[in-house]
């Protein structure tokens, strides 16, 4: 039975210091041909290739990165829609899939909103049935589930009387995305993963939905993992930001820090690539050249070294570990790691001493 109250905080287990979600060593490779002798699959898309991060209770983690860098895959892995090849997901102190937190229980705690508002709604179900589906599955009686669906509709700003009986094709994009949000909330999750949830919307509508998300978060005490490729939106939404590049985390840390003084050259390039808002201060030179490499055959060492201005010989050989540069700010760049051997890296302090 679902919790009758609408207060996720009541379900808190580990206290505020315990991260709500922590992910370590997440790996997912798609396809490829496995040799009969076992070992690494050949030609596989290394969509997610060793990702670690944590989301604290009540915060919003923004995830940015170029297309194909593995943002959605990470989300789907966290959501357990696809099984990771390796890695562990711990939710509020319990490993997902353990006896204490089986999949069914986990899925009431975490929900997801997809990018394509149309494809993520069953065209044959009415809005209220779509929203009520989750609760029904979890044993809420029909009448009650419908009632909750109506409440949720109201909550996401759609008048239940007008919208409850509609089909997805009778709604606008913004309205559909509201339904998707309502559906995700129907199970009263504590963590909501928003995978490009506003990318397909018009700017004027995007703002409405972003506002709605903020309101809901405040009202329901939610935690968000907010995926987007629009740095402005991430800046607006996120408390902390994770930058991904080709299946790996490039940098993760507080959003104001990362978006003001990035430590990873890729983050810097991303920021510099944002179109300027000032006609008198236009971008004069492209911060990066070329397209992101193919994840089937990612560059050796640091995956960014092929496009990095500061690349040096070592970058092609040594994969940089994700290391803290300051509290809660981690960077995977040899330059940020003293003594890494990169010419621009600070020398090791011990050595200096």
């Amino acid at each position, binding site marked *: 039975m679902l919790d009758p109250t609408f207060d996720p905080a009541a379900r808190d287990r580990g206290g505020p210091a315990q991260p709500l979600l922590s992910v370590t060593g997440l790996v997912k490779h798609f396809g490829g041909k496995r040799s009969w002798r076992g070992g690494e699959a050949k030609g596989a898309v290394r969509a997610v290739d060793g990702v670690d991060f944590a989301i604290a209770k009540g915060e919003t983690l923004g995830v940015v990165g170029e297309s194909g860098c593995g943002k959605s895959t990470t989300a789907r892995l966290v959501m357990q829609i696809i099984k990771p090849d390796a890695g562990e997901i711990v939710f509020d102190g319990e490993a997902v899939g353990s006896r204490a937190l089986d999949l069914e229980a986990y899925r009431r705690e975490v929900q997801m909103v997809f990018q394509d508002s149309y494809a993520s709604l069953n065209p044959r179900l009415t809005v209220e049935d779509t929203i009520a589906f989750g609760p029904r599955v979890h044993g809420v009686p029909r009448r009650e589930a419908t009632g909750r669906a109506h409440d949720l509709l109201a909550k996401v700003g759609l008048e239940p009387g007008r919208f409850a009986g509609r089909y997805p094709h009778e709604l606008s994009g913004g309205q559909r995305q509201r339904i998707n949000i309502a559906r995700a909330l129907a199970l009263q999750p504590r963590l909501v993963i928003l995978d490009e949830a506003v990318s397909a919307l018009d*700017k004027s509508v995007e*703002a409405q939905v972003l506002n709605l998300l903020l309101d809901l978060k405040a009202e329901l005490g939610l935690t968000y993992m907010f995926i987007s490729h629009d740095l402005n939106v991430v800046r607006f939404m996120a408390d902390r930001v994770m930058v991904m590049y080709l299946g790996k985390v490039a940098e993760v840390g507080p959003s104001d820090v990362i978006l003001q003084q990035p430590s990873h050259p890729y983050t810097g390039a991303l920021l510099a690539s944002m179109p300027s808002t000032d006609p008198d201060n236009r971008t004069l030179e492209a911060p990066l*050249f070329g397209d992101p490499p193919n994840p089937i055959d990612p560059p050796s060492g640091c995956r960014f070294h092929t496009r990095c201005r500061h690349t040096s010989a070592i970058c092609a050989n040594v994969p940089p570990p994700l290391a803290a540069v300051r509290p809660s700010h981690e960077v995977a760049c040899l330059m940020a790691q003293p003594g890494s051997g990169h010419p621009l890296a600070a020398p090791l302090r011990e050595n200096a001493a």
Partner: protein
Amino acid sequence: MSSPSSSPVPTGQPLVETKDLTVDFTGGARPVRAVAGVDLTLGAGELVALLGESGSGKSVTLRALMRLLPERRATTGGSIRVDGRDVAALGRKELARFRGGTVAMIFQEPGLAFDPVYRVGDQIAEAVMRHEGVSRRSGRARALELFERVRIPSAATRLDNYPHEMSGGMRQRAMIALALACRPKVLLADEPTTALDATVQIQILLLLRELQREFGLAVIFVTHDIGVATEVADRIAVMYAGRIVERGDCRDVIRAPAHPYTRGLLFSRADHAFTKGTRLRTIPGSPPDLTALPPGCAFAPRCAEAMPACSAGVPEEIAASETHVARCILLRPGVQSRTDATAAA
């Protein structure tokens, strides 16, 4: 950056000039007025950004300029003159020479705009051969030249690629090369960077700007991203529901938007929310249904400052500043904004 143009209508002989352009789609159950009276002028070497949300008629306007709309289902009204010629009056042969020769187009999805079963180089050569009547060999030579010009790495081998063998950014470069192949005077770019990643988008924008200057092209650049428009445009025209509601010098439109819709657009951007956690200013409601446009100003139903007069008739273009005009009755002398009025009271 310099962009000296300072009047809403460029001086001299305009290269592109539309007057009261309308497009109606009659194929469906109810007729759709996708473009409802667009006046647009564009001089040589000038880049106009056509800004607007999805469905506001930007693409249709571009297609109308090239007469690409399906003739059986779309009726085009008003006049279009490009390079001194009436586009509607072009004969079959002239039209073919006009397309690609005088006006070229860049599409949003370069992956879809190339024929998937022809080599990219051949598709460029094909256009050159058609327009200049040269041999295949010289067509390919031109393609190679252009590939190098748009900075496609190892251009010679890339000519033999099929579209699917190229990355998104490279395809868009190839698309630009194709558009420039026959040295057009006008370039129409329909959201050429929307499908691209931020790091690639900026490269393409810079490339376009560079080529525009080098070839002295007149460009109409369609986008829904104000940032992108700001980055490239000399002038900006904001479209809403098939109409240009505000146009003028880029700087003016961005800095002092005169139309409530333009203002709404600008302030609903996340980068305008200076403090995190504050709410964004939004435009309520959703874009209008083109089959049943309200009389008068189409934005009135969503406009916080709407008043009865708004639905009386389509507002005329009124100068908001020296270099920019908008279609909003608030600009009429003597009309006061409701917010101002309450403030005053």
